[in-house]
C-alpha cells in the first residue's frame, strides 16, 4: 500500500514539474529561434535570462512598485534588458565573427566567452552592492488552489504554462505564416540568396536576437517571480535548456514538449529518488545531462519534432 502522503508528493512533483518544464521550454524557445536563424549554439543565452530576472528585480525594488501594475512594469524592464543584452552580444561579437566566416565551433567558443563576460560582470557588481547576490521579486507567486495541503497550484504555475504554450504557438505562426518568419527561414538556409532576393538579412538578424532575448527576459521574469535568483542561476539551467532544445530537434513545439518532459522527469525522479533511495536532490541535473548526451549521440536531429515535417512541406 502506497502512503497517501507520497501520492500527494508525486502530484506536487508533477505540478511543479509542469512549471519548471514550461520554464525550460520557454527558455529553449529563444535558444531554438536563435539557433535556427543564426546557427549559433549560444552558451551566453542563459545570461540573458539572469539579466532579465535581475532587471525585473531592480526595477521593482528601486521604484518601490507594488501589485499587478508593478509586475507589468518589471516584465517590461526584463524584456528590454534581456533583448538589449542579446542584441548587444550579437552586434559586438557574433555578427562580426559571422561576417568573417567563423565556424560553428568558433561561434560556440565566442558564445562561452560572451557568457563569461556577462555572468562575471554581474557577479562583480552583485559582490559590491548589498542584497544583490540573492534576489527575488517583492510580489511573490500566490497560491490559487491547494490540494490536500501538500500540493498546490500557484499563479506562477498558470503564468509559466500559459506563457510557454502561447509563445510556442505565436513563434510557430510567425515562423511559417508571416513575412518576417519567411525572411528568417530564408536567411537561415542561404544568407547570400536571401540577400539577393532583397531581404535585409542584418535586419532579420536583429529582429531574431531581439525576439530571442525578449523570450529569455520573459523566462527570467517568471523565474524571479517564483524562485530566488543569483548571478549564476541562468548558467545552472543552461544544460537543461540545451537538453530541451536538442531533444526537441530545435523546433518550437518540440522544445516545449521536451522541456515539459524534462521538468517533470527532474521533479518526479528526484522526489522518488530522495524518498525511496535517500538520493541527494543535487543529483537531478544529471538527468538533463544524460538526456543531452544520449540525444546528441543517437538522435542529433531531435526526438520530438512535430512540426519539422510539415515545415518541410511548406517550404
Amino acid at each position: 500500500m502506497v502512503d497517501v502522503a507520497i501520492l500527494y508528493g508525486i502530484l506536487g512533483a508533477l505540478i511543479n514539474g509542469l512549471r519548471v518544464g514550461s520554464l525550460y521550454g520557454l527558455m529553449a524557445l529563444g535558444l531554438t529561434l536563435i539557433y535556427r536563424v543564426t546557427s549559433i549554439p549560444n552558451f551566453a543565452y542563459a545570461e540573458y535570462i539572469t539579466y532579465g530576472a535581475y532587471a525585473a528585480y531592480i526595477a521593482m525594488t528601486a521604484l518601490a512598485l507594488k501589485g499587478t501594475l508593478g509586475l507589468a512594469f518589471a516584465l517590461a524592464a526584463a524584456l528590454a534588458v534581456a533583448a538589449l543584452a542579446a542584441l548587444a552580444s550579437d552586434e559586438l561579437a557574433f555578427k562580426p565573427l559571422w561576417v568573417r566566416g567563423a565556424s560553428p565551433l568558433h561561434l560556440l567558443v565566442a558564445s562561452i566567452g560572451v557568457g563569461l563576460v556577462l555572468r562575471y560582470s554581474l557577479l562583480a557588481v552583485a559582490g559590491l552592492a548589498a542584497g544583490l547576490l540573492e534576489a527575488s521579486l517583492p510580489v511573490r507567486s500566490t497560491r490559487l488552489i491547494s490540494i490536500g495541503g501538500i500540493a498546490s497550484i500557484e499563479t506562477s504555475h498558470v503564468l509559466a504554462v500559459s506563457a510557454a504554450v502561447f509563445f510556442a504557438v505565436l513563434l510557430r505562426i510567425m515562423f511559417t505564416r508571416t513575412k518576417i518568419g519567411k525572411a528568417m527561414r530564408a536567411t537561415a538556409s542561404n544568407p547570400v540568396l536571401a540577400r539577393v532576393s532583397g531581404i535585409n538579412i542584418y535586419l532579420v538578424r536583429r529582429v531574431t536576437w531581439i525576439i530571442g532575448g525578449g523570450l529569455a527576459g520573459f523566462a527570467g521574469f517568471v523565474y524571479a517571480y517564483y524562485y530566488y535568483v543569483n548571478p549564476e542561476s541562468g548558467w545552472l539551467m543552461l544544460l537543461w535548456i540545451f537538453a530541451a532544445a536538442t531533444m526537441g530537434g530545435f523546433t518550437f513545439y518540440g522544445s516545449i514538449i521536451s522541456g515539459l518532459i524534462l521538468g517533470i522527469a527532474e521533479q518526479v525522479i528526484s522526489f522518488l529518488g530522495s524518498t525511496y533511495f535517500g538520493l541527494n536532490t543535487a543529483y537531478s541535473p544529471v538527468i538533463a545531462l544524460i538526456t543531452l548526451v544520449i540525444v546528441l549521440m543517437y538522435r542529433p536531429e531531435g526526438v520530438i519534432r512535430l512540426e519539422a515535417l510539415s515545415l518541410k512541406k511548406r517550404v
Partner: protein
Amino acid sequence: MEGVSILFSQWVIWFGVYAIMALSFNLEYGYGGVPNFGKVLFMSLGAYSAGTLAAWLGLQWASSKAGIAVAGYTGPVYCSPEAYHVLSTASSQGWLEPSQYILLFVAGVILAAIVGAVFGAIGSYPTLRLGGDFLAITLLALGEIVRLIAYNSEWPVCSFNGLTAVPTPFAWYENKALVDVLYAVLIIGFTVLFYIYTHYVANSPWGRALKAMRDDELVAQVYGYNTAKLRLQVLVVGSAMAAVAGALLVFYAGSVQANTFKPERTFEVIVAVMLGGVANNIGVLVGAAVIAALNVFLNASALETLGITVPGNVATTLPYLRYVIMGILIVIILLYKPQGLIPEKPVQTPFLEKLRALIKEKHVVEEAAGTK
C-alpha cells in the same frame, strides 16, 4: 621577499599545469581537429585517481607504522578526520619516509596517466558519431556529470569537503619556504618533457596524418588513414596528459576538491591555446603563461605581496574580473587574430632526420667522387 618567491613558484606551477593541459588540447584540437571540451573531465579523473591512491596508500603505511587503526567511517577511510590527522602529522612524526613520499607521488602520476588513457579511449566513442559543436557540447556535459557526482558523493573524493590530506612529495622537507620552489622545478621538468614529446609527435608522420584529418577528413580517408583510429589515439594521448596535469595539481595543492574542475577550467585551456596559436606548441606555452599569470596574480593578496595595495571594492571584484578578461580576450582573438599570437608553422623536419639526410648526402657525394 619570501612571499614574492612563493608567489612566483606558484605561477610557475600553475603555468606547468596549464601548459601540459594546453599542449594536450593543442594536440587534440590544434593538430587533430577534435574539439575535446571535456578537458577538465580527464584532468579531474587524473586528480581523483592520483589523490585517492596517494591518500589511501599513505594512510596504510603511516597507520601501520604508527600503530593507529583508522576505520569505522561510512565513506572512504581516507575521508575520516582521524585519517586527516594521521596524514598531516605523518612527516613530523616520522611515520612516512621521504622515499615513501616520492613513491606515492610517482605511483599517483602513473595511475593518473593510465586512468586518463583508458577514459580517453572510452571518451573517443562520441567522436565516432559526432563532430564540431555537438561533440564539444557532449564532452562538456560528460565533464559536468562527473563533477556533480564527485561533488555530492563520498566516493571518490569525500563529496563537497574534498579530500584534504594528500601526501605531497616534499612534505618531509624541513625548509617549508623551499617546498614550493622544489615543486616548481619538478613541474617544469614535466612540462619540458611533455613539450619535447608533443613537438616530436606533432612533427612525426602521425602528426601529419592528424593535420590531414583536421583539414579534410575525406581526403585523409582516401589516402588510407583510419580516422576513427587516429581520433582514438589522439584522445588517449591527450587525456593521459591532461590526467597527469590533474595529478600534478593535486600533489601541489595537497587536496582534491570537485569544484576545482568546473567547466571554466576547460575554457581557460581553450583560451590559452587560441591566444597562443592553434597548432603551435611555443604559442601554446605563451598562452598558458598568460592564463596562469591571470590566475595567480589577479587577486588582492598576491597584489599586496607585490607591493600594490588595492581598495576593498576592487579587491572583491578581482576574482571575477579574471573571467571577464578571459571572455573579452577570446572574442577579440577570434575576431582579429584567429591564428593566435604565433600562427601555425609548416611541418618541421625533425633534427635527427635532417642529420641523417645530411650524412646520406655527404656519403652519396663521396661515393660519387670515389667512383670517378
